[in-house]
């Protein structure tokens, strides 16, 4: 049992939407405090537990803990506080405020946080820790995304590549959404067997975090957690960007169209007139 390490990577979205901030649903400081407490709780559970925190907004994403540049001299030991807690707290506080003030000077080009990039970075980090693991030890990793963004945040193909890699590496992706149901992230949770949860009451953010996302995935099965969402896997057609039930798929580039077109608009291949499906051809033969 003790040979299992558990790694939690928290991806923290600091680009909270106007709606969340202005209507005073939650203040930034409350938000960060809740996450800091949550991260410390995870470390406190078991001595073998590891944690990493990545902040992300619409401009950049960055590891804030562990921090390679953290000099131990800058840490004043507050009385009675465990060393690792003060380290976590100090790095989070310092690096997040640096990160926010740094990016405030830059131009905002998009309104969506770069969650895909943060996940890709986290997977690189996980694969490094797995390489550095001593023999006989195993690492259970999961990624928790806390975000307040409202719609599809990334390019679908790119994000799905990341999700499939996580699935292959046995990394669970959990999502704690502050406001919206995000179809893309719901799919990510469904594929990696994580939990997607929309916080109904932001003032109780910490309680929800501790209740749902603190227990290890193995323990979750024994707890009463919200039932899994029914995930909609219907695609958008490439021509009108609408959800479709039945579509036509290009056999060369897998583009999806809602109607039969003579030429694929993506790869410009010319289609033959509709042929019988391979399934029908098979039946004819019998």
């Amino acid at each position, binding site marked *: 049992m003790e040979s299992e390490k558990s790694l939690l990577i928290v991806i923290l979205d600091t680009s909270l939407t106007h709606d969340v901030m202005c209507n005073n649903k939650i203040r930034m400081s409350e938000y960060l405090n809740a996450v800091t407490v949550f991260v410390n709780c995870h470390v406190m559970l078991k001595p073998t537990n590891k944690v990493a925190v990545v902040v992300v907004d619409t401009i950049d994403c960055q590891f804030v803990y562990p921090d390679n540049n953290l000099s131990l001299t800058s840490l004043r030991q507050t009385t009675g506080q465990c060393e690792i807690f003060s380290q976590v707290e100090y790095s989070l506080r310092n690096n997040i405020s640096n990160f926010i003030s740094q990016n405030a000077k830059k131009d905002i080009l998009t309104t969506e946080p770069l969650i895909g990039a943060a996940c890709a970075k986290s997977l690189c980090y996980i694969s490094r820790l797995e390489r550095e693991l001593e023999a006989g030890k195993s690492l259970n990793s999961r990624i928790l995304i806390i975000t307040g963004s409202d719609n599809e945040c990334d390019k679908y193909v790119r994000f799905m590549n990341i999700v499939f890699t996580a699935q292959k590496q046995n990394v669970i992706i959990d999502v704690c959404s502050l406001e919206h149901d995000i179809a893309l992230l719901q799919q990510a949770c469904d594929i990696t067997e994580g939990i997607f949860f929309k916080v109904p009451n932001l003032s109780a953010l910490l309680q929800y975090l501790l209740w749902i996302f603190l227990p290890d995935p193995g323990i979750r099965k024994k707890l009463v957690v919200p039932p899994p969402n029914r995930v909609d896997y*219907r695609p958008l057609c490439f021509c009108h960007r609408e959800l479709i039930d039945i579509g*036509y798929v290009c056999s060369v580039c897998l583009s999806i169209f809602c109607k039969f077109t003579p030429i694929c608009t993506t790869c410009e291949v010319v289609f033959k007139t509709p042929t019988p499906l391979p399934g029908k051809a098979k039946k004819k033969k019998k």
Partner: protein
Amino acid sequence: MSSISIKNPLPKFSVKGNTSPDKWEKWKLLLSKSKGETVKSIKGTPSKEIVFCLNDTILCHSLSPDERRYSQAEKEVLALVFVCERFKLFLLGQKYLSIMAVGMNDIKGYRWESGYEKSWEEIKENEKGLGFSALTESLALLEQKKKKQNGKIVRLGMMRHLNIIVDFSDAMLDQDLKPTRQICTLKLVQKFIKEFLEQNPISQLGIIVTRNRRAEKISDLSGNSRKHLQSLEICYSSNYCIGEPSLQNSLELALSSMKMLPSHTSREILVIFGSLNTCDPGSIKDTIELLKTHGVKTSVIGLCADVYILRTLCNVTGGQYHIVLEDSHFQELLLNYIKPRSVSKDCEATCVKMGFPHHSEKLPSFTACMCHLDDNVMNKVGYFCPQCNSKYCELPVECKTCGITLVTSAHLVRPLHHLIPIHVFKDMINSPDNNSQCYGCQKRINECMEQISVCNDCKQIYCNDCDEFIHNLLHVCPGCAVLIK
């Protein structure tokens, strides 16, 4: 011999021979002056000898009875040690040797020649453990890197039909692959099937086994990996492997299921053959011609020695012929067939009608699903065919009622990284006082003294491990994901 002077920086050795471990006959070690020079092979050399050729001088080393029992890797190293002793005078003062292992008939197989200069060091380091597998592994990596550079495949045939023919004759009980050829093959084939159907979501796969002079189709062409894996379970029993295989019977069985397929799909056969003989009712040459006229690409993975008729089969139908060196090599050969093949520009393409089912809005009562009708299992959740409303509990599946293929959008996205490969990172020399860190894993660059890579698009620095991880698994550059176009 004077051609090898001290000025000549890197004499190249190539170890050449039959790559099958137990039927190992002869190794030719050829020393050629430069890259472009063709390898001189000696015909009719007596077996059980290592033959070396240094320009025009031929040296032979008879294998002692003990040495004959060496494994293939050991023989290879033996050959190298021998050549170093003999050619010591010419090699002293040279920095590295470059070694190349090529299959018997792969004379143009100079693929690995460049970028392989330091492999001698690798052997030296592992001298006690004879780490030849490390060598083949790095070979594979280099090959992959090469392929990445060649990248830019415009069109891929995503719609494939593949029949796997597996030999279950008594030759498969041989123990040169651990634990036996049978078990090793089954394990790898199962892995292959799963991966193949994941990466080729609109393709179909069928399994044919051949034993006791017969061919038997144990799983029809379909895209459901669970069914295939189930049908393979029976092959695990130890008395499953009997008699001789029949290549012709199995090829004809495979052909009969693929003849009627529409012309825009690829037709492929992959044969895994362990036996050295085949028991055929007629002339196999006719079957090969037939395969050629129907455009069926046939590839063979041999577990034993090079067989003439199998090589002809591959050459005529445009497939590939490979002999397995060891189990990790076997796996690598199999995984090569997963990637969709590039197709010519004027190939025929088509639009395939597909259904994208979703859970219904209201919770339905417990009902049986179409895929488990016989098992009397009822469950609440399931996917409903948008055309005829049949219920299935797993996807992808072909609707039994209306024939449409049901998939999710996630299935269709999975193979897309083949179409949009990410760019190769540029190698960069690391300076020890470099204080930056790897953009991916946050490792300090001065900790890893090896080479580092830099992405051409986003100019971020990565360590070698991350470079490998990003290109082989992730297919996303984290730095580029930050840039907004």
